[in-house]
C-alpha cells in the first residue's frame, strides 16, 4: 500500500527544522560544518525519497497545498501583469484568471486555473473548478491575443470542471467543447503548462496548444484516481491502485506521446523551492517561445493539428 505523502515527507520536514535551528545559532566554524553536513544529508534524503515516489504520492505532490499556483507563476513571469475579468455574458469566474503582461520584453496573454490558498480564497476560487463563464472568459482572452498577435500561455491546475446544477444549465459541456475547437485553429502560438492537477475535460479546455509541458510531479488524467476507483473498483479507497492504472504521471504521459516535454522540478518538488521552480519554468518558457516564434503560423497550425490527430493507440487490421 502506498504511504501518504505527509508520512514519507516527515523526515524531510524534521531535517529542515533542525537545519533552521542550526542557522539560528551564533556563527562558528563548528556550526557551519554541521550546517554543511546536514544540508548534504537533506539533499540526499530528498533525492532518495523523490526518485521512488509512487503514482499516488505524485498525485499528492501535484495537489500539495504549498505548491506554486497560476497566480504565483504569472506574478513572477510578468511583474506588470494586468488581470482582465469576465466573459461579457454572465459573470466573472474566479476559478480561471487571465490577462496580459510583459515576459522578458514580449507581451503575452496568460490564462490559468487558480486554486485558493486559505479557506476563504478556496471558496472564492471554487477550488479551481471553473463554471462555463471561466472557459468563456479564457476564450475571450485568447481571441484578443489572436487579434493583436500575442502568444498565449496557459497554466492548468484543476480537479476538473465544476459539476453543479448552474454549470449544467449554462452549458458546461458547450463551453469546454467550443474551446477545444477554437484553440485548434487559433492563429497565435499556444504554450500549455500543467503545473499541478490536470483534471479531465476541465483541464483540456485550456490545454490545446503547440507545446504541452508537464511539471515533473504534475498529473494529467481522464478522471481523478478517486473517481476511477469508485467506478471501476466500487471503492474510492482504491485510489492508489487507480492512480497507477491511469498512467497519469509526466513520465508515463511522455512515453505515450501525449505531452511534448517535462519541466524539471527542484529537489523535493516545486513546493520545496518555489523560487527555483519559477526560474526553471521561465527558462523553459523562453526557449519554447523562441522556438515557436521562428515558425510560420500556417506551418504551426498544421503541426498542432497533426500532434492531436496522431494521439491514440489502435490496431490497423487486414
Amino acid at each position, binding site marked *: 500500500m502506498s504511504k501518504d505523502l505527509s508520512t514519507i515527507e516527515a523526515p524531510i520536514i524534521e531535517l529542515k527544522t533542525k537545519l533552521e535551528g542550526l542557522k539560528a545559532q551564533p556563527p562558528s566554524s563548528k556550526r557551519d560544518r554541521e550546517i554543511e553536513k546536514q544540508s548534504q544529508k537533506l539533499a540526499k534524503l530528498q533525492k532518495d525519497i523523490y526518485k521512488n515516489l509512487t503514482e499516488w504520492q505524485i498525485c499528492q505532490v501535484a495537489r500539495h497545498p504549498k505548491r506554486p499556483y497560476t497566480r504565483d507563476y504569472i506574478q513572477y513571469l510578468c511583474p506588470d501583469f494586468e488581470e482582465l475579468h469576465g466573459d461579457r455574458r454572465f459573470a466573472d469566474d474566479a476559478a480561471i484568471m487571465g490577462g496580459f503582461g510583459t515576459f522578458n520584453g514580449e507581451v503575452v496573454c496568460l490564462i490559468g486555473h487558480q486554486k485558493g490558498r486559505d479557506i476563504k480564497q478556496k471558496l472564492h476560487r471554487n477550488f479551481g473548478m471553473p463554471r462555463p463563464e471561466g472557459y468563456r472568459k479564457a476564450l475571450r482572452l485568447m481571441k484578443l491575443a489572436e487579434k493583436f498577435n500575442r502568444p498565449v500561455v496557459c497554466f492548468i491546475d484543476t480537479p476538473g*470542471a465544476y*459539476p*453543479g*446544477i448552474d*454549470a*449544467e*444549465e*449554462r*452549458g*458546461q*459541456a*458547450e463551453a*469546454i*467543447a*467550443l474551446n*477545444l*475547437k*477554437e484553440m*485548434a*485553429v487559433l492563429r497565435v502560438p499556444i504554450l500549455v503548462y500543467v503545473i499541478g492537477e490536470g483534471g*479531465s*475535460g476541465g483541464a*483540456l*479546455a485550456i*490545454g*490545446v496548444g503547440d507545446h504541452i509541458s508537464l511539471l515533473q510531479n504534475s498529473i*494529467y*488524467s*481522464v*478522471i481523478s484516481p478517486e*473517481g*476511477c476507483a469508485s*467506478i*471501476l*473498483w*466500487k471503492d474510492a479507497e482504491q485510489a492508489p*491502485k*487507480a492512480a497507477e*492504472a*491511469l*498512467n*497519469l504521471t509526466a513520465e508515463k*504521459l511522455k512515453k*505515450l506521446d*501525449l505531452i511534448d516535454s517535462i519541466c524539471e522540478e527542484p529537489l523535493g518538488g516545486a513546493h520545496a523551492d518555489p523560487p527555483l521552480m519559477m526560474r526553471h519554468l521561465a527558462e523553459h518558457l523562453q526557449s519554447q517561445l523562441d522556438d515557436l516564434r521562428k515558425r510560420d503560423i500556417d506551418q504551426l497550425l498544421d503541426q*498542432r*493539428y497533426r500532434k*492531436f*490527430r496522431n*494521439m*491514440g*493507440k*489502435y*490496431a*490497423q*487490421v*487486414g
Partner: protein
Amino acid sequence: MSWFIKKSSPIKPAKQKKVTIPEGLWDKCLGCKEIIYRQELKRNNNVCPKCDYHFRVSPEERLQLLFDQEAFELLFDDVQPLDPLSFKAVKTYKDQLKKLADLKKVHEAVWVAKGKLDGRPVVISVMDFSFLGGSMGSVVGEKLTRGIELATEEGCPVVIFSCSGGARMMEGAISLMQMAKISAALARLAQKRLPFVSVLTDPTTGGVTASYAMLGDINIAEPKALIGFAGPRVIQQTIRQELPPGFQRSEFLLEHGMLDAIVTRGELREKLIKYLHFFRFQA
C-alpha cells in the same frame, strides 16, 4: 436483440426503479411501464406508441432509417482496439475487449457510414452504447476523425449520433485527448463551410458532450434523452441537494438554450434533409 432487455444502464439516475421486462413478444416501456407488443414497437421506430418514450436502438437500425434505400457503406472497421496501458481494475480491459470480440462486435463503439441522403452524399456516424457504454477511446476517436476528414476532403456534410457515457477510462489520458482530436477535425470541416449536425440520444454525457456532441452547426436531440457534462450522481454527491425534475433531459437543455430542436425518431430523416438543404454550399 439485447439492447432493450438490459435492465438498467450504468449512468441512469440512481433513483430510477429497475424494470423487469418479459422475454418474448412483449416489451415493457421504460417510460410509462405499459406492456407493448414488440411488432408494434418495431413499426413505430422503437418509440412507445403510448408515451413517446424512445427505446435505445442499434446503430444498424438507425442507419437503415436514414439513408436512401437503406443503402450505406461502413467505413474504417479495420481500426480495432488495443490495450495500451495494460489496464487492470477489478476486470482487465483486455478481457473486456476479448469478450466483445468473441461477440463479433467488430465496429467498436461507433459505426461510420457513407451513403446518400436525399440523393446527396453524407457521412453519418452512430455510437453504440452496447459497446462499453459507448465510451470514447482511441478507436472512436480515430474512426470519427477519419469520417470527418473524409467529408472535409470530399465536400460533404457530417452527421454524428452521440450515445455515450463519456471517455473510456481504461485508456487513460489517451481517451481524454480524443476530445481535442475530434474537435480539431470539426474545426477544419467548419473552415471548409461544410455542415455538421449533431444528434444527441439517450444518454450523452461526459467528454462526448463536452466535445463533438455540442459542436454542431445544429444540435438536436431525441425526446427525454439524458444529456449533460457531469453525471447526475456526481452532481448530487457534490452539491448534496435533490436535482430538479427533468434535469439534464432534452427538454431541459432546449429550455436552457443548448439545443436547436427536439426531434422525434419518426421525423428525423426529413429534418436532416431540410437542415442540410439550408446549408448546402452556394458559390
